[in-house]
C-alpha cells in the first residue's frame, strides 16, 4: 500500500516510490519538489521565507527558508540513496494573496522572492527546474509522486492540473 505523507508549513519530508508527498494550502510559501528518476526517491519542502541569513537572532529553523531548506532536503535524499547529479525539481506556490503591499522591505513580493531564492539555490546545487506553477493570487494544494514525477496542483475553483 502506498501512502501520501503530509508536509506542514516550514517543514520538509522525503520518501520513495510508491509513496507520495503532499502539502496543503500553499500561499506565498513555495513547495519545492525534487526527484531522482532512477531511484524514484523524492522530497518536498514547504518554505516560508527566502533567506536565512537575513533573519535577526533566534534559533535557525532549517526548513523555514529556501536556502537552508533545499540544502537539507537534498542532503536527506542523498542519505536515502538519491544522487544529486540526477535530481530534477518542480516548483509551485509563491502567490501574492493580497494585492496590498506591506511596505516593510523584507516582506515586499515575498512570494516572488521565495521563488527566486528557490531557483537560485537549486541552480547553485546544479539541480534543473523542469517546470513551475508559481505566482498569481491564489492558494495551491500540491501532491508529488516520486514514481512518475507528477506534481498535482489543486486550487479553489480551478481544474486540477499536473505539471
Amino acid at each position, binding site marked *: 500500500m502506498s501512502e501520501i505523507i503530509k508536509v506542514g508549513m516550514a517543514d520538509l519530508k522525503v520518501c520513495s516510490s510508491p509513496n507520495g508527498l503532499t502539502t496543503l494550502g500553499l500561499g506565498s510559501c513555495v513547495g519545492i519538489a525534487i526527484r531522482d528518476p532512477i531511484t524514484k526517491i523524492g522530497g518536498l519542502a514547504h518554505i516560508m521565507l527566502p533567506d536565512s541569513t537575513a533573519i535577526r537572532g533566534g534559533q535557525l529553523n532549517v526548513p523555514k527558508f529556501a536556502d537552508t531548506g533545499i540544502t537539507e532536503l537534498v542532503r536527506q535524499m542523498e542519505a536515502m540513496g538519491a544522487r544529486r547529479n540526477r535530481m530534477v525539481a518542480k516548483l509551485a506556490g509563491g502567490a501574492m494573496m493580497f494585492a496590498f503591499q506591506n511596505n*516593510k522591505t523584507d*516582506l515586499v513580493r515575498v512570494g516572488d522572492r521565495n521563488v527566486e531564492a528557490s531557483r537560485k539555490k537549486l541552480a547553485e546545487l546544479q539541480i534543473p527546474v523542469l517546470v513551475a506553477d508559481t505566482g498569481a493570487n491564489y492558494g495551491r494544494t500540491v501532491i508529488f509522486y516520486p514514481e512518475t514525477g507528477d506534481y498535482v496542483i489543486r486550487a479553489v475553483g480551478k481544474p486540477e492540473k499536473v505539471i
Partner: protein
Amino acid sequence: MADMSLDNVTQNYMDVLREIGNIGAGNAMTALSQMLQCKVDMQVPQVRLLEFQEVGSMMGGEEQLMVGVYLAVEGDITGSIMFLVRTDSAKHLVNKLMMGMASEGEELNEMEISAMKEISNIITGAYLNSLSMLTNLKIYPSPPDLALDMAGAILSVPAIEFGIMGDKILLIQSQFYDDVEIDGYFILIPDLESYEKILSALGMV
C-alpha cells in the same frame, strides 16, 4: 528588551495580549451588532501561541475555505491585522447586512465582497480603536483587502510576517453568535519594535 522574540513571550505578556484581545473583540462585536442591528453575543476570546503546523488544522484544516481580510497598520505602531471567518459565516454576515438579499452558495459576488470588506472594516476598526485607547498610541488602518481561499494559503501571509520574528504565530480566536455560531479569528501582527511600544505603553516593560 533587546532580544524580544515571540518565542519567549511570558505568561505576563500573554495575559496582556489576551486582555487586549478581549477588549478589542468586545468592541468589535458591539460595532458589528450596531451595524447589523441585531444582538451579537460572544465568548471570552482565546489567545493562542501556535506552531506554524498547528494553525491550519485548528481552523478546520488547511483546505477549509475562509475569507481573510487584511489591513496594514500605521501610525505610532506598524504592522498588520487580519480578520478571518469561514466562508459560510462570511456569507451569513453579508446576508444579514444585505437584508437577506445575498446570493446562494458559498461564493461571494462583487457586491458581497464589498459588503464583507465593509463589515471587516468596522470590526477591525473597532478592534484597533480599543487598542489605541488602551495604549494611547496612534493607530491608522489602511483600506482592507480580501481573499477567499484555503485557510493555509491565507494564513501563509501572517505566518510569514511572524516567521521573520520567530517560529510561532499569535492568534486571537473569538466565537460570536447571533442566531448562528460564527467563528472569527483576529491576527494582530505588530512589528517587533511595535510590540515593545505596546507593552511599554501598557506599563509592562
